[in-house]
């Protein structure tokens, strides 16, 4: 009798536990979610309004397209595997919520990979736009932040080849930048940290849409540069590369310059790079010393000289170092011109020389412009790949 009572109680109890286990208020079924892969923010037509573009994945279409004849291209649009929805409001949050007018499902942000901000919106300041994405628990800090040279909606409305979801394709392009290092890899956490820094200027990848033979494509190259939270300019490919050398974020890339005989180009392929930047005090003024150690291979040569000789290699190393140093100098002078400490020198001095920093901080804007920066590049060409001579008959 006792056992059966206990048994009965157990049954009742497990019945009770079934109630909470089935989920409750925040239940979300997969088919009720609109999974956002990328989001764009532009200024609206009316002053003070924003247009938010959300690229929403259509899972059924992806299943169809991968099994069948491949992706069907819409008329230059993002393809039929995604739906590009648009909402307008006086804040990005309101704009997103206003999409209920067109969306059958609630937008779901945890899988969002890219945040694209239009140029005009970025010029007005990105802090108010990004607050939502840092504050809300749904979006993730690992999303990449890109600045469109035109409208963000145009970027999200363009198909990316080899990628059934364009926004994921853009994220992959940003990741793949390591191979050429002409665009920074900036996620929301990185932007957030730079926005919170007193001196370091925020940067973001630059993206634009190019039309070739009626076919639109997304290009990620260069960097957008901010002071405070406002877009003030951009770095071209070379300047961006220079900046990445300084901040030690070079993955790989080609460094090319004229052959020693001046006839045509030599291309070095960067294998490894390591940058040390140190502040030294020299008779009262601070000098930033940047030392870059590069290991490269002879990737290709277009001139007809035989380069696989010790003296030649030494010369290639010297020319390579010069080419790298000139990118770095280009980045420095552009940064000084924009008055944007994109390298984080201010924060670095703050960390390593708190005493000097106390004196520098109030006039950092000016001090950065006057900061002496010494650049030393050491290039080592280790290998010549598989051939020893160019494709010409032996002399």
């Amino acid at each position: 009798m006792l056992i059966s009572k206990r048994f009965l109680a157990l049954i009742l109890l497990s019945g009770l536990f079934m109630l909470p286990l089935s989920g409750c208020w925040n239940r979300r079924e997969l088919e009720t979610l609109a999974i956002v892969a990328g989001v764009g923010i532009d200024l609206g037509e009316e002053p003070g309004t924003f247009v938010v573009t959300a690229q929403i994945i259509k899972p059924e279409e992806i299943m169809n397209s991968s099994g069948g004849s491949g992706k069907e291209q819409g008329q230059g649009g993002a393809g039929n595997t995604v739906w590009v929805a648009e909402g307008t409001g006086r804040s990005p949050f309101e704009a997103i919520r206003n999409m209920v007018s067109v969306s059958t499902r609630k937008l779901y942000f945890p899988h969002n990979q890219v945040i694209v901000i239009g140029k005009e919106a970025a010029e007005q300041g990105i802090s108010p736009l990004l607050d939502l994405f840092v504050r809300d628990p749904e979006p993730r800090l690992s999303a990449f932040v890109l600045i469109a040279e035109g409208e963000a909606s145009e970027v999200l409305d363009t198909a990316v080849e080899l990628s059934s979801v364009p926004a994921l394709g853009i994220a992959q392009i940003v990741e793949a930048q390591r191979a050429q290092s002409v665009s920074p890899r900036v996620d929301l956490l990185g932007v957030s940290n730079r926005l919170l820094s007193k001196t370091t200027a925020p940067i973001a990848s630059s993206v634009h849409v190019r039309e070739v033979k009626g076919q639109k494509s997304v290009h990620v190259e260069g960097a957008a540069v901010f002071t405070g939270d406002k877009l003030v300019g951009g770095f071209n490919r070379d300047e961006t590369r220079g900046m990445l050398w300084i901040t030690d974020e070079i993955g790989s890339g080609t460094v090319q310059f004229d052959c020693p005989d001046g006839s045509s180009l030599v291309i070095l392929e960067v294998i490894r790079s390591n940058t040390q930047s140190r502040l030294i005090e020299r008779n009262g003024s601070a000098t930033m010393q940047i030392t870059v150690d590069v290991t490269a291979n002879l990737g290709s040569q277009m001139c007809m000289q035989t380069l696989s000789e010790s003296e030649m290699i030494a010369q290639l190393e010297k020319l390579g170092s010069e080419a790298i140093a000139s990118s770095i100098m280009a980045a420095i002078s552009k940064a000084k011109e924009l008055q944007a400490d994109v390298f984080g020198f201010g924060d670095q001095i703050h960390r390593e020389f708190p005493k000097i920093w106390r004196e520098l901080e109030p006039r950092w804007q000016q001090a950065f412009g006057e900061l002496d920066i010494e650049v030393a590049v050491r290039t080592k060409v280790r290998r010549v790949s598989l051939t020893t001579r160019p494709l010409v008959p032996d002399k």
Partner: protein
Amino acid sequence: MEKGRIPSTQLASLVIAFVLGSSLLFPPGGTAGHDAWLAIMLGLAEALVFVLIYTHLARRFPNHTIVQIIDIVFGRYLGKLVSLFFIWYLLHLGSLVLGNLAVFMTSAALQETPIIFFTIMVALVAVYAVTGGIEVISRSSTLLVTLLILAQGLGLIFHVPNMELSRLKPVLEAPLDKLLWAGHAAATFPFGETIVFAMIIPYLNKPNQARRSVVRGLLIAGLFLAILSARNAAVLGPTAGISLYPSFVAETIINIGRVLTRVEIVAGVGFITMAFLKVAVLLYGASLGVAQMLKLPRFEPIVVPLAMLMIALERINFDNVTENLAFSRVTYPIYALVFQVAIPSLTLLLSYIRVPARR
């Protein structure tokens, strides 16, 4: 009243779970910026003094909980009043922990779910554990703490690629007064809160090892918190400073080859288990305290009413989360001193004057 006896190693793990309880959610020392780990170490040192007071008290009165000791020292009537204050603290602290957990759940994951749902669920489990007695709570703590430290340790390894240790520099950037205050705040939350173990020490199988176990647990937990705090600053940078739950946000950054991502839920579950253990210990201490104060034959019947009181208290504690933050930064470091230092040291002092030692 309590027949169970726990080995001293389990006491150490119980102390670890208790200390980590809600400090995993709200890392202590946060007001010191990236020097928070230093503040935690300072707080740990300060709290060790608190521990000496109540473990000394426990040595002077072996086999007595602090409520019983108060009864002896202050006398029948005044003692009840002091005990009531002490029990109030345990209940209030329990309600704060319930609140922390519930607010975390509604901020980070289930935004629309009513808070009371979480507090009731956690309190239910805690009631179940407490009615099982101290052995049940301490054994589950051993298991859960092992799992938590394993998961967090693994997380720490996964974090290595994201860490920039230079973000911890310059060390000692926070002004000294700010750092000391942050350290003191860390002493009262979470380390000094171990005063509740003055209710549990008599149930050790070797009570003379109590001090060593509590201190060991405190040191492990403190070191763990300091490492986590340094990790948060190194992984998140300045963003850690604006995060309400930096330890949780840091877990969202883990990305091992785009395969191992979104592991924060593992950490979240760990936070919940630790908070549950903290609530259970506090509920146990409060129930046992009330039973001993009123000389009841058993403490089990009052567990449920006290848990309901705890849930109700949670409802009226704060109107919003910023009120909670202000309370824990400004009010609590002073408020807690009454219960963590004043009551035990007053008891100890009076015991020398009024009661001959019982050895």
